[in-house]
């Protein structure tokens, strides 16, 4: 049989038509999709065994307990540590992606001097020159650490100044400190025993204090209950995230929190709901109603609600003496479920302020928020792990990043008991990084290194025989055979918790009802995030959902 050109064309067309009903083209299409999805330049995670480590987060002073999944020496996942006595497995949203921060494009890796690359030796020379010429001011944003002790000791040896930048939770405790003489860093809120919490704009469910501390209490004792064991009353001018979930949201005019506190005090006294303790507010209930936008009856009703379930404690968003005075009237100072003294040893720190302007040089620790503004002509040595953009600092000095440095974790702000943990270095630090404490140790070799101070602190806890160590199980300190064993537990992620202070210990003397402070805009956790950059996955919050508005000046 002769094969013609026509036959060839017919067979080819038939084969082409027949091919469509076979799996071949579909399989090819499928394979193509697989090939195109696995280009060699697309990163693939390393197939290596994963091990679990425990530590504490050091990105802010709340020191959340961490479970870190490690693969090939790098952290590949972060979760909360359920055995942590304060955070109980909770983290802030950004903490879940904190392990990506060390590779953020804005990670500082070299010393920079006024925009140009420089070196550690040049920075040391410049610092030594400044040190010889005049006073040095050291600013710390996370006081109480072993590294803070190094900074403070250097400032003392130098006849310089050591100043701290405090968070809003600590600032809110300042009035009690000034009226009682007890340092604000020794005070805390006994929320665990409170039954009514009146928040004057404090973001109680949105980053106030250690993540998980109040949210866990609220979830267990309040959420979804019409008559909860823990009543959260949120006073806010807008329906904030906390207000949306509170037992009662009281809407008032913005900035009238102090007036409402005074009005509530007047209503409490007018109705004889509390004994007259301390000064009488100058504002009447009617005047408070005019200024806050509430009715006088609503203020009186709120006063009755507050004393309806005690202990009740009022919490200010920031330093607000009127709200502190309301707590005095409620008898919530030095009592169970109120403001308590957690420590006898804490020292008062001076807030960063005037001393800076007269300094020859200012050294700013990495724990200080990036946008801390320093009006000074002094030479500024700014330590940071990430470059947050525009800065007035002369020197940018790279420090170890997330989990790259051994540090200790003192008591978080506003806690009612003392805690202590150790965050060991789990990750090999990036090259050429030094913390401020390490830098000062090279300048002044007589300083005791932070590691030794941590060792001494662990020994002191062992020697005091007080409190418990919370690890996989809770062990009283008295049961540890040696300080080394206790320290080893802390290095593995356990947390020491001191004994609860007995009621009393704070005696406030207040002569007149305090004047209303001038309040700035309320702060929240995202604005207070000490790192100048955010983990890239924060984009889920800021770009890909409408849950939050992106904080200014931060890079997502």
């Amino acid at each position, binding site marked *: 049989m002769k094969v013609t050109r026509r036959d060839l064309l017919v067979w080819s067309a038939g084969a082409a038509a027949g091919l469509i009903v076979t799996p071949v083209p579909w399989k090819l299409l499928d394979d193509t999709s697989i090939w195109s999805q696995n280009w060699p330049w697309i*990163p693939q*995670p390393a197939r290596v065994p994963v091990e679990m480590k425990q530590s504490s987060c050091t990105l802010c002073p709340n020191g959340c307990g961490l479970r870190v999944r490690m693969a090939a020496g790098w952290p590949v*996942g972060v*979760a909360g540590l359920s055995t942590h006595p304060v955070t109980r497995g909770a983290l802030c949203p950004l903490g879940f992606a904190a392990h990506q921060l060390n590779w953020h494009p804005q990670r500082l890796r070299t010393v920079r001097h006024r925009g140009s690359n420089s070196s550690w030796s040049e920075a040391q020379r410049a610092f030594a020159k400044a040190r010889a010429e005049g006073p040095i001011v050291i600013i710390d944003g996370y006081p109480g650490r072993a590294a803070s002790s190094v900074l403070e000791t250097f400032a003392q040896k130098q006849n310089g100044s050591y100043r701290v930048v405090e968070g809003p939770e600590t600032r809110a405790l300042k009035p009690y400190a000034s009226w009682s003489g007890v340092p604000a860093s020794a005070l805390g809120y006994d929320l665990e025993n409170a039954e009514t919490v009146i928040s004057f704009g404090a973001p109680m469910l949105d980053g106030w204090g250690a993540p998980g501390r109040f949210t866990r209490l609220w979830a267990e004792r309040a959420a*979804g209950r019409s008559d909860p064991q823990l009543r959260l009353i949120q006073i806010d001018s807008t329906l904030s995230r906390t207000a949306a979930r509170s037992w009662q949201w009281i809407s008032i005019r913005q900035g009238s929190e102090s007036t409402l506190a005074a009005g509530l005090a007047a209503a409490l006294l007018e109705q004889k709901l509390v004994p007259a303790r301390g000064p009488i507010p100058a504002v009447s209930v009617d005047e408070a109603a005019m200024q806050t936008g509430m009715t006088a009856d609503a203020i009186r009703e709120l006063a009755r609600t507050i004393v309806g379930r005690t202990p009740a404690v009022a919490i200010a968003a920031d330093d607000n003496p009127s709200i502190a005075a309301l707590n005095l009237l409620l008898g919530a100072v030095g009592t169970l479920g109120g403001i308590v003294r957690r420590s006898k040893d804490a020292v008062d720190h001076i807030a960063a302020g005037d001393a800076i302007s007269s300094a020859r040089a200012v050294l700013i620790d990495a724990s200080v928020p990036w946008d801390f503004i320093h009006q000074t002509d002094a030479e500024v040595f700014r330590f940071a792990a990430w470059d947050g953009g525009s800065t007035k600092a002369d020197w940018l000095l790279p420090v170890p990043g997330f989990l790259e440095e051994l540090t200790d974790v003192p008591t978080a702000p506003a806690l009612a008991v003392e805690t202590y943990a150790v965050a060991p270095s789990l990750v090999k630090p990036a090259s050429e990084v030094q913390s401020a404490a390490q830098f000062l140790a090279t300048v002044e070799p007589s300083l005791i290194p932070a590691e030794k101070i941590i060792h001494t602190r662990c020994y002191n806890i062992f020697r005091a025989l007080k409190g418990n160590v919370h690890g996989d199980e809770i062990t009283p300190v008295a049961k540890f055979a040696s300080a080394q064993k206790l320290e080893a537990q802390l290095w593995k992620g356990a947390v020491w918790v001191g004994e609860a202070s007995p009621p009393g210990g704070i005696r406030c003397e207040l002569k007149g009802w305090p004047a209303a402070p001038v309040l700035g805009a309320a702060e929240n956790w995202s604005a207070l995030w000490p790192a100048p950059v955010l*983990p890239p996955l924060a984009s*889920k919050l800021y770009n890909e959902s409408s849950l939050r508005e992106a904080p200014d000046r931060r890079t997502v």
Partner: protein
Amino acid sequence: MNARYGMVIDLDRCTGCGSCMIACAAENNVPALPQATARTGITPVLVRKVSNGAEGSVRREAFIPIMCMHCEHDTPCVKVCPQQAVEVDKATGIVMQMPQRCLGCRYCMTACPYHARYFNWWDPAWPTGMEKSLNPGVAVRMRGVVEKCNLCHARLHAAKEKAAALGKHEIDAAEYVPACVEACPTNAIHFGNLADPNDPVSIESRSPEAFRLLAKLGTEPKLYYRSKESWVRALAEPISAHSSEVQHG
């Protein structure tokens, strides 16, 4: 006995913090691409803010985490997939997405009544070095395919491997917990086996306060919500009838 994994999310406990969204993305190696928006990003868990529609002091708001509902009956995405890239795993009840089979036609996205599926528009990319932080148990997200929640299937595999190593046939329930459940700071998300009538989640799903979104479609979603608030429970009906402040594609 086959499992039917599901969740009950207590909306009265959800504070809308977004921890579940970030923990999910970190667990599943979702890249954080700067070009991604609310319409184009991959958010296997997306927390929506909803309100009762009122204004002023009577306004109330709540937060609803939306993810794949793992529909059990007439699963819409399974029915429309031309590639058999989606199937309901009979052993677990999980609606599985197989990216290797997916051609990216997006029929499933159209069919999903919950808008819980996302198209991956871009090759995954991370800043230099950040690939070291990827979860070794999960592949990176491929371009050109559809993504969704798979109830952290890699964690289920790990739990199975662990059980097998111990010579067990059943996994320990504590070993398999999805990332969003683990991350929730208020324990609002409860996960368990709905096939077990004594499982706490199964019991909770039968509570009078429990409801499912668009239940009348008859797809039998395995994701339940619960709330004491009647206006929140009313959201079980078509979401467009209520105030929703998040848009996505």
